[in-house]
């Protein structure tokens, strides 16, 4: 395995194919918890955590499904795995690392229904990544989510003080902003590294 491959995957997940701004996955938490910077950071780290774990756990499940010739059951099986994983992690953290549990707070169970998490495991399969590549893709995909939501939250904190036309107040102007950010991130499409 080459480090360059992993770097390629990481760069792709964070910038070129950013989960939110290029693949449009995980938009609901992106809009929902980006009103304040501290909640956005909390959500971002929770997503990194769960995406990394989900990638690791779904890899053997996918192998099992492939061996049984049940490839078409991927989506259902992955949803099951992710939901159970998040529940388990929540209980484990509450007991073992209460400080981390309090820091992640309500965002941990929220992630169960985050399409970015399901997206990352399905993309792992689609791209034919091996175990380590999958985990790297999951963690860096979460880092991309953190980057996008932190940038967006800092813009939204300033939007609070802006004076847009009445019809644009609140969500409409936030959606326009998100669109402009996605446009900016299209600039990273040119980042192709010739190894």
């Amino acid at each position, binding site marked *: 395995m080459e480090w360059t491959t992993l770097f390629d995957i990481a760069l792709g997940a964070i910038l070129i194919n950013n989960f939110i701004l290029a693949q449009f996955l995980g938009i609901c938490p992106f809009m929902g918890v980006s009103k304040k910077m501290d909640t956005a950071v909390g959500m971002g780290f929770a997503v990194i955590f769960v995406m990394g774990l989900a990638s690791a756990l779904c890899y053997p499940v996918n192998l099992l499904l492939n061996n049984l*010739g*049940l490839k078409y059951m991927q989506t259902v*099986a992955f949803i099951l*795995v992710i939901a*159970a994983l998040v529940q388990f992690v929540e*209980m484990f953290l509450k*007991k073992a690392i209460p400080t981390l549990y309090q820091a992640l707070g309500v965002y941990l169970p929220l992630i169960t229904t985050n399409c970015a998490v399901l997206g990352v495991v399905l993309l792992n399969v689609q791209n034919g990544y091996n175990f380590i590549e999958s985990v790297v893709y999951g963690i860096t995909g979460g880092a991309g989510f953190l980057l996008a939501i932190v940038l967006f939250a800092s813009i939204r904190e300033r939007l609070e003080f802006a004076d847009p036309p009445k019809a644009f107040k609140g969500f409409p102007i936030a959606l326009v902003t998100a669109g402009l950010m996605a446009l900016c991130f299209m600039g990273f499409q040119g980042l192709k590294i010739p190894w």
Partner: protein
Amino acid sequence: MNIFYAVLTLGILGGVFGLVLSLASKVFEVKTDPKLDLILDCLPGANCGGCGYPGCAGCAAAILAKEAPVNACPSCSGLQTSRIAAVMGVEVKAQERRVAFVRCNGGTRASRKFERYVGLTDCVAAMKVSGNGTLDCAYGCLGLGTCVQACKFDAIHINAHGVAQVDQDKCTHCMQCAKACPRHVIIDVPYASDIMVPCGNKDKGPSAKSLCTVSCIGCRLCEKNCPAGAITVTDNHASIDYTKCTSCGVCVEKCPRKLITDIHATGKVEPVA
């Protein structure tokens, strides 16, 4: 045959996860005091921060740990406080209800530095860009609504005169508005009190008079005429000692500026816009 495998595989997967989770819930069980939920139920759940703890859950934990008194929540009514006291097994004395009060009634009637202010609609920002506020009076309410944003209970609004005004029935005395106000113009008063002095300027009479048509000029007529000795003029404005005030209304009559008001006689200080 394929469908059989599919059902079997997912069934087994689901069963295994269910089993692991139910085992985990036993293994990782964290015992929480059932009192915590009982206390949390009594708290308003607005997470206003008036108690000084991070949200209602933080306050409940502090009450449970006996770090905070049972009446730590400034927003709780007497009934809620007594329920918390019952959970904790202690007595609580009846407390006088207090509310926030904006000690300014100038707004459009106070002279302004500019014809029109077009900056951010936020008092803190206005204080910074315009050199200590948009009013000539250094003590008055700017009326840009920083306190309105701070209120979690929809109890403070900007009235027709462009001054913040507290809806006393909705006010829970969390005093977040007073903390947010860069002019420190919001004080707390007993809910039952009638007589209010809606001005707190510290300028001497002549200058206070020239800056605002509804300012206290520190003439001491109220102080001299109060039969209960409840009013004192300090820092060039009148303030009322509510432990002595009998709401007789003599000061309301005597005030030459028509500033001192009986808010319950007139309904409100001013009609809300």
